[in-house]
């Protein structure tokens, strides 16, 4: 399992990594602090990745723009927006841009892990 974590907070990336280690041994993590860095990391992964967790508010390129850029070329890989932005309009905008699921911070570890597992299972079944 190859997971891309995109968040400008190193702390948040570490929290997500600790939780998502629950996906099983052998889970690999790749990290980026903004949208531009994420696109660069994606370009460096010839075998792709299985899922990306994407923050909304980041410097240089925000998460919504990143989702749109990813979806220009890749419709299949599941993307989860993980953000403090909880307003309904934001959720709708993220879903329209192409995210598969939406997690509002703060989250508890169990909820995050379950949402990621459900998103992966749905993508696999599609």
């Amino acid at each position, binding site marked *: 399992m190859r997971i891309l974590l995109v968040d400008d907070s190193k702390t948040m990336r570490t929290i997500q990594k600790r939780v998502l280690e629950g996906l099983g041994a052998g889970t690999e993590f790749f990290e980026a602090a903004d949208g531009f860095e994420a696109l660069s990391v994606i370009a460096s992964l010839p075998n792709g990745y299985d899922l990306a967790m994407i923050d909304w508010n980041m410097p240089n390129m925000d998460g919504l723009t990143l989702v749109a850029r990813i979806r220009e070329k890749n419709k299949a890989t599941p993307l989860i927006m993980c953000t*403090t932005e909880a307003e309904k309009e934001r959720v709708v905008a993220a879903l329209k841009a192409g995210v598969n699921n939406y997690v509002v911070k703060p989250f508890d570890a169990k909820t995050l892990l379950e949402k990621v597992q459900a998103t992966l299972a749905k993508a696999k079944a599609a």
Partner: protein
Amino acid sequence: MNVNLINPFVASCCEVLTTMAKLSPRIGRPTLQERVPRGYPLYAAIEITGATVGTVAFGFPAEIAAALTSALLGGDRRAIDADCLDAMGEVANMIAGSAKQNLPGGLCGISTPRVSLDRRGLPPARPPVVVIPCFCGDHQFDIEVSLRPATVAAAA
């Protein structure tokens, strides 16, 4: 001071610390202080703009800052280091984001939180300050709220 602008930050602080770090703060009795309170070694502050202006600051002793950092990042952290500052910034960011959902509509905007080892570099708090003591085990941290109508602040 408008309690509807204060309560969302108190509730969000409890929610973030409980959900993310399994620390469940107990809220004490608020006091109104005519001077900016004594300093904690670590502050995270959110600036309020709009019809109401001022700051909501969270002052943490080293013990709680280290406990929070340990809970978020793992390990047994004791020092206020770069990891701790980053962790406290993310905690404040989540508090601000969560509080924003429950603030009265249109009354104010909130800034990206700033973290400082002392009050330098933070937006200045102006008395009077509502100090809300919060307790995690034997240790106390404070939520310090200094808000005024923008019209009053502009005339000062």
